[in-house]
């Protein structure tokens, strides 16, 4: 009887763990470029999807007047255009890279200088995983 209870508890615990699986999304290697108050910058990182697909719904930060999910796209003529992303899908188990010249979180109108070596806080809101706070070190321009 006792072992049966432990078994049921174990199954419940396992099920709970599975429910929190979307939270296993990880954000790694964040960084941003230094800049002066009033200027723009961008935040880059890598996201590794969890066992289930998820979606970044928004990015927010106190560091800039406007924070947007963007993607730089080059056309056949070599012209770079910026495309606002309403959201960014993160497929299960896949790595989605936010890199210069590609996906990035755009910081428009910095509220303060971004000084090399300091950290800025950025909040990413995922559809399933909820809010994930990242701290991105500021690198040289």
């Amino acid at each position: 009887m006792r072992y049966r209870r432990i078994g049921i508890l174990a199954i419940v615990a396992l099920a709970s763990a599975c429910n929190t699986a979307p939270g296993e999304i990880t954000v790694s290697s964040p960084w941003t470029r230094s800049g002066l108050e009033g200027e723009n910058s961008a935040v880059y990182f890598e996201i590794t999807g969890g066992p289930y697909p998820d979606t970044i719904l928004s990015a927010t930060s106190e560091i800039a007047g406007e924070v947007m999910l963007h993607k730089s796209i080059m056309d056949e003529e070599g012209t770079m255009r910026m495309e606002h992303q309403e959201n960014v899908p993160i497929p299960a188990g896949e790595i989605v890279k936010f890199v210069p010249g590609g996906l990035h979180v755009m910081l428009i109108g910095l509220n303060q200088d971004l000084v090399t070596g300091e950290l800025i806080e950025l909040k990413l809101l995922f559809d399933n995983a909820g809010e994930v706070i990242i701290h991105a070190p500021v690198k040289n321009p």
Partner: protein
Amino acid sequence: MKKLRPSVFFLLIICLLIACANVPHVFNGSPYQNPNPAPPIPLVDTSGIPFQLEDYHGKIILLYFGYTFCPDVCPSTLASVRQILGELGDSSQEVVFAMITVDPDRDSPEVLEGYLSRFHPGYIGLWGDGEELENVKQAYGVFSEIDLESDPLNYLVSHTARIFLIDKEGILRTGYSFGASNEEILSDVEYLIRGES
């Protein structure tokens, strides 16, 4: 099978080496098949002094069209060129980087100077507006336009993101689209520095 005599063998090796040495350098990026002198750039630098390509003959020029409000591609390019100059060490003295702003309304010479100097003290900012800027853009095949879908107060500018390579004689050799590796550009610049052309 008849064996080659050692002297014939070495002669063949030497011929092969000479042949290899004479293979013309093929520039990376999108090289110009019939390279011509780089089109004039009748703009001013951030001190208001008229810029003349002739003043830089003897130097290799990396030329870029961008703007300081650009949050992603331009700063990435400026940082990449800084890395390239770092790789060159002392030879970087033979290389000049210049950025022509495609956003002259917001990029005053002062703004341009302040921005570029934070990437590299040697970067040259070039400014002009109206017809003079349009003529330069057209001559280099550069396109730019304000992104009307972006915030009118904080508008973005879509633009050709290409680095042009001009040799020591002022000949426009090639252009690198965004995404070209530092190694590709470095290889061409080092070739021009060696002066084998």
